[in-house]
């Protein structure tokens, strides 16, 4: 299968702390890849490196065959940050239309449709600053989806969403992947992991699993993905860490 995102020997240091220690992975095109791991394990840092906003110490990050962050990629990649980054003093519609206008060929009608797609049709005229937490995050998601990117990097897009909405969003992710979009989605919710084509599990800046959900279930002999991850995390701990 064609590779959309290639990470080779990626080392990132933030301050004096080494966050990623020579991480390598390849993400196939037209798939949904889940990025999982305890908080502070380096998920956001890896995503930032792929989007090209992270200073990296060493290693190679390529997206669609080009160096991460290169100018040509900025038309082809969508990024939703973990904390919603939209303008609270604009309405939902104004925000999404603004981000749409930054791309060639994306119209105001596309923007309005995206607002409906994330379930904010009724709040389109409302100031983002007055939305609830979950709605705020969806406004931010809409701004990442609106440019119909080939690669979509979503940092915890479903946090704070109710189960029905979460299900709808995941159905949309699946539809996008089916039409060739590559999605990398970080999550804390294990029932979401089962909906991914591939899972990357990182712990303290190291990749400890890179496989399909079925393969991870088979390898650990555990049907429940949460139990399988706990097993993987504990089995990679050093005895000293385990004793802590």
């Amino acid at each position, binding site marked *: 299968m064609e590779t959309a995102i290639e990470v080779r020997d990626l080392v990132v240091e933030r301050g004096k702390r080494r966050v990623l220690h020579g991480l390598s992975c390849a993400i196939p095109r037209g798939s949904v890849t889940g990025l999982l791991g305890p908080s502070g394990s380096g998920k956001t840092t890896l995503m930032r490196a792929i*989007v090209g906003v992270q200073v990296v110490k060493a290693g190679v990050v390529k997206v669609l065959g080009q160096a991460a962050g290169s*100018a040509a990629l900025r038309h082809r990649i969508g990024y939703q*940050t973990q904390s919603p980054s939209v303008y*609270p003093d*604009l309405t939902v519609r104004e925000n999404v239309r*603004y981000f749409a*206008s*930054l*791309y060639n060929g994306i119209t105001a009608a596309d923007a309005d449709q995206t607002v409906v797609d994330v379930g904010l049709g009724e709040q389109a005229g409302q100031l983002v600053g007055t939305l609830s937490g979950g709605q705020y995050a969806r406004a931010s998601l809409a701004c990442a989806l609106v440019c119909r990117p080939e690669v979509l990097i979503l940092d915890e897009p479903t946090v704070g969403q109710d189960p029905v909405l979460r299900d709808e969003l995941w159905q949309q992710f699946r539809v996008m992947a089916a039409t060739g979009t590559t999605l990398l989605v970080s999550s804390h919710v294990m029932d979401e992991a089962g909906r991914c084509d591939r899972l990357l599990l990182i712990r303290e800046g190291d990749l400890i699993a890179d496989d399909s959900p079925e393969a991870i279930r088979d390898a650990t002999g555990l049907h429940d993905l949460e139990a399988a991850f706990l097993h993987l995390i504990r089995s990679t701990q050093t005895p000293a860490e385990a004793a802590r």
Partner: protein
Amino acid sequence: MTPRILRSTTGRILRQLRHDRRTIALMLLVPVLLLTLLYFMYENAPGVFDGIGLIMLGIFPFVIMFLVTSIAMLRERTSGTLERLLTTPTGKLDLLFAYGIAFGAAAAVQASIAAGVAYWLYDLDTAGTTGLVILIAIANAVLGVALGLFCSAFARTEFQAVQFMPVVVVPQLLLCGLFVARDQMAGWLQAISNALPMTYAVEALQEVGAHPDPTDKLWRDLGIVAGCIVVALVFAAATLRRRSP
């Protein structure tokens, strides 16, 4: 730079402003109220308002736009919208020029109202034309915008950002020739004054006050202000980093 992105970003900034009615009211009314105060302070001292009122028409837009821009840009930096914009096709200059144009337009409205009140209500008397006064006021406002964009890089919070106002604005106010004529200052003060852009804006306004036609000195001063705007924008662009640690 992409014209489409520049246009839509300018529109977005103006739309943000439009939603903030209180800021618009403050922006437009405060200069008028302060001019009123000045007019009545010097009501019995003929000619003084013509000098001070004229200079104030240039200073208000500078101070207000510096403050508004440094906070607005700080919000972009801290809310994550700047980082997000830099992952889109938006160029650094698109963003910086959009701020310059949007707040420059707001300043044009502000300066026109303030000048209108000063000339027609309070009989401000200048040898030169109102249009030139407004032009200098707009140049000064854009200078405030450019310095605000740059200074926002050195503040982490809005609390810190407002503290830059006394640092950047007050020395320029003190040394621009408003309180003490520049040729009566000590040499070293004059040297500092020579290095501050507001000095030239004020001098340009005084030229309009004294001469019916635009003088060479006026154009030179306006050129210096324009040069300072470009330098401040270049420095501001240098503070916008696509990659952060």
